[in-house]
């Protein structure tokens, strides 16, 4: 690992100041489970590291009936997985959090890190995109809010500008009755990243299908939403044929790569299978 300068700011302003004034290549570290591996393998060799763990007030899970859920960016994946309010209101987020790494990893890794590392396979992303989550970001020039769907710019890249820090993830309240699943497909049950990750969320109001949301991970340069597939079910009637058609459409939204885990062809095929499974389960249980 190349030597680096290490900063431990105690508040957000100080952290933003260090990040925006350094003309050196600075990286933010939270849980460190991605960054330290990238540094070990020489994929990253930042000159400065800014540790956010000392920042107060960014590790929280708050729920209000009207506004929905707010999660501080330094909240550990393990806290999300175990949170009783998340389990009750957004169980799909617990599923996604639990699918990541091991207990050890989830005790360190944060939700903000999972998103800002911007791996196409980041498991929190499809679930949060399907929930239409927003990101609160703070920088030297003030705050802004970005829809999570627009947060990712490419593999390992986000729309965060120099000096900006992700501070909060806002998950709006879901109307009516809803059911969601996150299905991660991998070669192992744990300790692996996804070959494909699919999140499906269905909402119903007064017995009528109100919303269909399908988000996909690990099958494109960024996590994506498959809106054309959603439309097929929303516009037409819900039938086995429509489910199959929606699954085909979801596969068309993908631009997968071939890598050590899977071929491009297989990723497209497995997306069809997972979307079908997800839709069937959600429609049955909603």
């Amino acid at each position, binding site marked *: *690992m*190349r*030597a*680096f*300068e*290490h900063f*431990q700011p105690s508040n957000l302003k100080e952290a933003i100041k260090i990040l925006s004034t350094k*003309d*050196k290549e600075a990286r933010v*570290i939270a849980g*460190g*489970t991605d960054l*330290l*591996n990238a540094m*070990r*393998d020489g994929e990253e*060799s930042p*000159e400065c*590291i800014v*540790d956010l*763990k000392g920042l107060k007030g960014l590790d929280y899970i708050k729920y209000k009936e009207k506004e929905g859920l707010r999660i501080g960016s330094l909240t550990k994946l*393990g806290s999300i997985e175990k949170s009783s309010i998340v389990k009750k209101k957004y169980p799909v987020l617990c599923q996604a959090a639990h699918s990541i*790494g*091991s*207990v*050890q*990893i989830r*005790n*360190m890794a944060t939700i903000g890190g999972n998103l800002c590392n911007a791996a196409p396979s980041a498991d929190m992303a499809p679930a949060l995109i399907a929930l239409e989550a927003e990101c609160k970001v703070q920088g030297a020039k003030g705050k802004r809010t970005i829809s999570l769907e627009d947060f990712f710019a490419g593999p390992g890249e986000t729309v965060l500008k120099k000096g900006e820090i992700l501070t909060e993830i806002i998950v709006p309240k879901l109307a009516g009755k809803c059911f969601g699943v996150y299905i991660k497909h991998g070669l192992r*049950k*744990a*300790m692996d990243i996804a070959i494909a990750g699919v999140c499906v969320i269905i909402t119903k109001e007064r017995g009528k299908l109100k919303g269909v949301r399908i988000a996909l991970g690990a099958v494109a340069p960024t996590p994506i939403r498959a809106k054309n597939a959603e439309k097929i079910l929303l516009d037409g009637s819900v039938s086995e044929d429509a489910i199959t058609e929606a699954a085909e459409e979801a596969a068309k939204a993908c631009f997968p790569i071939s890598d050590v885990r899977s071929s491009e062809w297989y990723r497209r095929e497995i997306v069809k299978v997972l979307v079908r499974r997800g839709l069937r389960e959600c429609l049955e249980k909603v």
Partner: protein
Amino acid sequence: MPGEGLKKGYFHMKKIIELKINGDFYEIAVKPSKRLLSVIRDDIGLTGTKEGCGKGDCGACTVLMNGKVVNSCLVLAIEAQGKEIITIEGVAENGDLHPVQQALIDYGAVQCGFCTPGIVLTAKALLDENPNPSEEEIRDYLSGNICRCTGYVKIVQAIKSVRG
């Protein structure tokens, strides 16, 4: 060029950190890039904590940090400043093995032993959190501790035997 444009020598400046390991206090000077695992093994000499993969996949380097299991290979030592750390050497109390340690012996759940320190700490953390886990919960909790000898059957049996 590493260090180009920065204050000469700054990169190699060590910082003094204070760690509480197994109840004892240590003051150690570390480079920012030094991992907690290296401090525990090389500076303090507690070699019960093992380095397997060095990238958070195998769990051999598992320690308890403020009561929670973490991979010490993925923790920068300076970021463990002020934390309370328990390694395998700190699990036995007054010379008595921890019930998990005794159970692993009784069930013959140790072969080469390289994963065992990590397994003991993870099992301890599980039982502290949930004194009566199901077999599924035990297997799920252990998924970050890889054992290539035993096939896990005896490890799981041993942990089941010490449930509350």
